[in-house]
């Protein structure tokens, strides 16, 4: 009891002597957080503006001065999904992104396991695979287009999942090899002693243990494929066309200013999945974006 009382006294004394400096510290902190909030608001404003434009009637979207207060309407989204074929393009985007993610996660994680546990190909194979990610899309798309024409693979549902492997496979191998390196291998070893096959070891032991690394890898894979433009423009025509390409087509007809609400709605559809998924990534953002930034 006495000890606690003694401590209380000391802190009280201290707080009195340092009251002035605490005050300045508090106000400095206040200024800093205000500045941070203002900058975040400034950076978020364009996204906010598109969101509100997508909720305006054509008249309001085109109003001068811009309508700051308005009654939100979902008209644009209704027209987008029933009046245009954007719903189909969105579905195509999902097919392409999910298809590519599934293939590259299964193949990439297996390869990453082999390259981590058995050092298959050593560092050379790893660097070789990773360097593929540096390739500029605008370069690789020319020969890839001619190749896909030969194999009659233009504008099918397999086209983009296959084409995106150029970037997603090296990404998955890079992420998962680093992650598997950090998992102790004794568990796998004892499972193998008990007679488990390697495939069973990967499926039953490695995948569950690597789940914390696997989740951000899956999300990034999906986002990269969802956002991709060049391959989707060149390698698809009608059947497998994606939402991002549809959005670009809207932009080229932007003379038709009356449709700004509609265009904004389409932009929101394209922007929402990555923004929502970003919240699931949190602390993996910087690392994943680094390898993502050196992509196309």
């Amino acid at each position: 009891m006495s000890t606690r009382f003694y401590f209380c006294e000391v802190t009280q004394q201290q707080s009195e002597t340092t009251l002035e400096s605490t005050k300045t510290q508090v106000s400095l902190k206040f200024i800093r957080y205000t500045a941070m909030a203002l900058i975040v608001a400034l950076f978020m404003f364009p996204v906010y503006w598109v969101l509100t434009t997508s909720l305006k009637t054509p008249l309001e979207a085109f109003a001068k001065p811009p309508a700051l207060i308005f009654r939100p309407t979902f008209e644009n989204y209704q027209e987008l999904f029933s009046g245009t074929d954007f719903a189909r393009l969105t579905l195509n985007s999902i097919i392409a992104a999910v298809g590519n993610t599934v293939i590259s996660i299964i193949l990439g994680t297996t390869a990453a396991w082999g390259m981590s546990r058995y050092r298959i190909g050593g560092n050379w194979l790893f660097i070789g695979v990773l360097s593929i990610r540096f390739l500029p899309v605008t370069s690789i798309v020319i020969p890839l287009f001619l190749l896909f024409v030969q194999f009659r693979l233009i504008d099918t549902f397999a086209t983009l999942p296959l084409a995106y492997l150029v970037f997603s496979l090296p990404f998955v191998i890079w992420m998962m090899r680093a992650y598997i390196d950090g998992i102790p291998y004794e568990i796998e070893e004892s499972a193998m002693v008990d007679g488990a096959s390697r495939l069973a070891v990967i499926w039953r032991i490695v995948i569950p243990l690597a789940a914390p690394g696997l989740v951000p890898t899956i999300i990034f894979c999906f986002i990269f494929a969802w956002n991709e433009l060049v391959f989707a423009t060149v390698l698809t025509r009608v059947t497998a066309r994606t939402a991002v390409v549809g959005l670009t087509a809207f932009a080229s007809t932007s003379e038709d200013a009356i449709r700004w609400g509609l265009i904004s709605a389409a932009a929101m559809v394209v922007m929402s999945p990555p923004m929502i998924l970003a919240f699931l990534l949190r602390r993996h953002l910087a690392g994943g974006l680094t390898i993502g930034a050196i992509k196309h």
Partner: protein
Amino acid sequence: MAVVVRFAARKPYWTVVIPIALLAVVAVYPIIELVRLSLHNAPSATGGVEVFVGLKQFGWILESSEFRNSLKVTFIFIFGASVVEIFIGLALALLFNVESTLARVFRLLLVLPAMLAPVAVGLIWVLILNSDFGILNYLLGLVGIEGQAWLASPALAMRSLILIDAWQWAPFVALFLLAGLRSLPTEPFEAAKVDGASPIQIFRYLTLPMLQPVLAVVFLIRVLDGTKLFGLVLVLTSGGPGSSTNVLGLEIFKKAFEGNQMNFAAGMAVIQLLLVLLFAGVYTILFLRSHAAAIGDDT
């Protein structure tokens, strides 16, 4: 012992066979084919066979004023955007370098633009910068500044493009630099404070020199990314007005898929590839030297 032997006995090469085979088809073969294309010319419209032209192709490319212009425009963009992004990114990193839940939420919101498709980013800014009904010119009008044709004037288009790229990527640069700031040893900073150094002195003589390797790495990341610019500029200006924002990626695309000059475009693509290779090499060297692997820090 037996365990170790069994674990390492036969390497399971099957784990890498399919991925390597796929990458050989979709990445390695295309590079070889690209180089082959660049050394040939297409058969004439009436038919015939491909003509081997060798390095003459690159002579024609280097003589082409469109190519030279696109190279110049690309370099202006790369260095303009990278420098702007480093400055803004550094300022943001210093400001947002505090530990609290609110600060973490702020940082997450700030980096959201980096997740967006370049096409969507382009459209957002087309909407905001429109000279007639865009919100920016309206707001400027309120404070008495005359509105500008941000994307339609040759003098402004490149600057707008650079600032839009900075909007998308400066927060990412900040996040990267923040991880670098946190990995610096604390002792020199404490010693400097004890010695009575001012915050500006500490920044100038401690933070900046110690952060220099990380700055170099993130600069190179932006240079590398800038070399490949395509989607953003396609939507914003499609290379115009005139050809003032016609970057290399766009020029290659136009020649290949609109101008139907596959071989000429392949040659330009080889040059783009070499540029990326050069920057990637410098990047790898810098990265290995800086130990900047401490990325992936909490946001």
